């Protein structure tokens, strides 16, 4: 029997960016907040001296403990799904205090105005007929202009270092808080080639800061020293904006936020259409607790949010056959074996300091984004960014060789050593659009350590998904030719390239999506559940699709928007914040 704890104003599942932002904003307003984090406690001191590729990058110790819970995966609804058993293949989902926000690379992009109105804009420009049969584009129920202020807020909370995208004039209310990071020879080489070809390169905005910065809440982030241990690592120097350094520190300072670690949320408790709290297990003792609250916030990764909704039986599960229900629909990802494949250029006569870098040190361009392309002439929708980044190559994972070289033995050794620092990669990141049968539900046979069903992912690639990547690869190849690469390897994408256990990445979206109405979406544009006013589900689970760049800034922006909604909800005595497609006024609230 679960032990009932004293009631609090708000309980928040997760302590990553989404949960951390909600915690900071609510606790600053004086609300008492309890945070539940499935992973262990960690502080900045844990990251000092952590430059250990084997431990963090190969053994992935900062990622989800799959012995407790994982996903099952299949391609089609008539298959039996099998579990993703190891982090060697799993999406790299964070666990522990700060969540994935601790070990991110720090690339910050704002998504495009077209993204938020993707269905309307596509139909307006090309007609309904350009949308493939099983693709399900949906507007987000919010516009870029409405979201801009929240992007700005996230960038200021994190001190982002960047410069404006030359192809998006007038879309920013303010500059980035800090200038771009230092320029390297790799960045100069890419930039020159891109300009020679008539493109508009600009520096990737980075959460690894070019200089020390104090955010509006008084939290300080240090200037980055380019030590090259970002993704998979916590920052050794407090120079990467993460939830621990920023929003969680702000929440703690108020005295109103209590974070409980090793607290594994298993259900949203609810009655009569109202959430009453969270049931969780203390994984150190095995004890079950219920934390009651006036406001319940679920802000884990896509999979946790979707699974918690399904296990708690809130909202109607999505059925891909008749397309009824909403929970679990529109699973999209920047797939590691498709989107995240790279074109690699090898240089016999040029040598770069590839061992140095930061997670977001690079240059990008938007010349092929959804707004720049004419899709009448193409065999795909949406678009992509093209970029190169200098994250700092580590030696276990950096063994790239030109095509035709064996993957082991004398020739492999010779060439992997020779080219270790003689390489530039071009990476595309493309829009990932939703398909009718790409969705999540509960697995009928596999369970977690508590005996609850695992989340099951059903997903397949379509021609669109492969075509956009193949097209982007060719543009990447042209860039590397312009740079003078001696050998260029283009990943082989063919009909057999299929969604599998290696596909899901830290860039995954959907499951509890936002939208214009309760028939087609689970939450409104404040991330408030349509059918349960005091439950907010925040994070990438609310993305109806993924745009052509990294998702964290949009998670952050939507979380600031959601936090504003939570405060309105608590201040105004409850009710739906969006009614008949409009902001509810105080008098219309039920």
């Amino acid at each position: 029997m679960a032990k009932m704890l004293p009631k609090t104003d708000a309980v928040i599942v997760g302590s990553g960016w989404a949960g951390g932002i909600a915690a900071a904003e609510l606790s600053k307003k004086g609300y008492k907040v309890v945070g539940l984090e499935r992973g262990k406690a960690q502080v900045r001191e844990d990251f000092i001296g952590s430059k250990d590729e084997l431990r963090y990058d190969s053994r992935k110790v900062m990622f989800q403990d799959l012995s407790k819970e994982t996903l099952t995966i299949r391609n089609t609804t008539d298959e039996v799904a099998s579990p993703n058993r190891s982090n060697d293949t799993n999406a790299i989902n964070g666990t522990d205090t700060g969540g994935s926000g601790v070990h991110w690379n720090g690339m910050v992009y704002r998504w495009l105005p077209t993204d938020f109105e993707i269905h309307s804009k596509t139909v307006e420009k090309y007609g309904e007929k350009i949308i493939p049969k099983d693709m399900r584009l949906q507007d987000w129920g919010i516009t870029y202009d409405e979201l801009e202020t929240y992007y700005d807020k996230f960038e200021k909370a994190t001190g982002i270092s960047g410069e404006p995208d030359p192809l998006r004039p007038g879309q920013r209310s303010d500059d980035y808080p800090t200038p771009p990071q230092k320029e390297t020879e790799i960045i100069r080489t890419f930039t020159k080639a891109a300009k020679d070809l008539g493109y508009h390169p600009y520096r990737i905005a980075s959460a690894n800061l070019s200089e020390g910065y104090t955010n509006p809440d008084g939290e300080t982030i240090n200037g980055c020293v380019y030590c090259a241990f970002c993704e998979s690592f916590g920052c050794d120097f407090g120079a990467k904006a993460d939830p621990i350094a920023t929003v969680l520190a702000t929440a703690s300072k108020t005295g109103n936020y209590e974070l409980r670690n090793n607290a594994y949320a298993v259900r949203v408790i609810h009655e009569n259409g109202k959430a009453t709290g969270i049931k969780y297990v203390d994984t150190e003792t095995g004890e079950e607790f219920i934390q009651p609250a006036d406001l319940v916030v679920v802000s884990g990764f896509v999979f946790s949010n979707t699974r918690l909704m399904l296990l708690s039986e809130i909202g109607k599960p999505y059925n891909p056959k008749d397309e009824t229900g909403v929970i679990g629909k529109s699973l999209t990802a920047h797939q590691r074996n498709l989107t995240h494949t790279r074109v690699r250029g090898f240089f016999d006569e040029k040598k770069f300091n590839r061992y140095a870098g930061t997670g977001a040190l690079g240059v990008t361009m938007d010349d092929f984004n959804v707004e720049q392309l004419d899709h009448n002439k193409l065999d795909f929708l949406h678009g992509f960014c093209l970029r190169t980044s200098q994250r700092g190559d580590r030696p276990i994972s950096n063994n790239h060789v030109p095509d035709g070289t064996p993957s082991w033995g004398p020739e492999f050794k010779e060439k992997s050593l020779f080219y270790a620092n003689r390489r530039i990669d071009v990476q595309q990141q493309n829009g990932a659009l939703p398909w009718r049968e790409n969705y999540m539900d509960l697995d009928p046979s596999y369970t977690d350590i508590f005996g609850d069903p695992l989340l099951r992912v059903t997903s397949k690639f379509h021609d669109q998904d492969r075509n956009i990547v193949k097209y982007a690869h060719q543009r990447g190849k042209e860039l590397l030719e312009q740079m003078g690469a001696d050998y260029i390897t283009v990943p082989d994408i063919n009909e057999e390239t299929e969604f599998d256990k290696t596909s899901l990445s830290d860039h995954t979206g959907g499951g509890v999506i936002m939208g214009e109405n309760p028939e087609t979406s689970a939450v409104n544009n404040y991330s408030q559940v349509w059918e349960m006013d005091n439950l907010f589900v925040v994070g990438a689970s609310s993305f109806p699709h993924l745009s052509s760049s990294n998702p964290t800034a949009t998670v952050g922006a939507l979380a600031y928007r959601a936090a504003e909604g939570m405060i309105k909800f608590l201040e105004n005595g409850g009710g739906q914040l969006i009614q008949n497609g409009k902001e509810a006024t105080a008098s219309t609230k039920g």
Partner: protein
Amino acid sequence: MAENNTNKPGNNGQAPDPSRRGFLKNSGIAVGGAAGGALLGGLFTNQFGKKDEKKSSAGNDKKTEKRFEEARMFFTRFADFAILEQATERIFPEDKNGPGAIGLGVPYFIDKQLAGPYGNNVKDYRQGPFTNGNGTAADSSLNRGEIIINGLRMMSEESMKRFDTKFDEASEEQQTEILKDFEADKVKIKGISSKSFFKLLRTLTLEGAYCDPLYGGNRNMEGWKMKEYPGSIASYANMIEEKEFIKMDQISLTDYQPK
């Protein structure tokens, strides 16, 4: 994939054999004259270039001090370990650049890894049924330690069958032939595809060549030196903008972590 290649005219699709001349031309400026000189000196004297008898972990590293940490904690039969030594050396052989797997301590690294949480799949999801024996190593109902043992013994069985000699006593060409067939999934192993076994073995070998030396591989940071990888450097802020390649001395966690 060949049709996707961009090769300059005259290159015939072949990557060049990097020559010492090309290497020196491109090795850039050295940080700290003494360190850079020492490294280049090492290359010229080519101390690893001599072709010798098959190495073993016990073998010809005459001047090394006694390594108390080099005893087996996972492998019970020396015969299995001897196969491991030869297999990893074929994957990452000694050459003019420097030591191979054995010289870097890779077999002992793997022994330690298999004895610990990774070899026992501690952080993996292990509930049955295990339906996908042809998937990755983690999809097998065998743990990683068992996979390596089964795979190594099957390599020796293949060697006996084909060449009437144990794998570790077969010629390098024979060993390579067997490894290639495992990589190509041509051999049956109980509980795991030979391809997935080989992939795990290759991954472990590279991990052992390039991990921080604290794990027992990358002995004396020789793996990093060959790759011109500096290791745990606190800051690159002062050099990251440089146009030329900068060669740095290696630092391991022994010297980096606070004590």
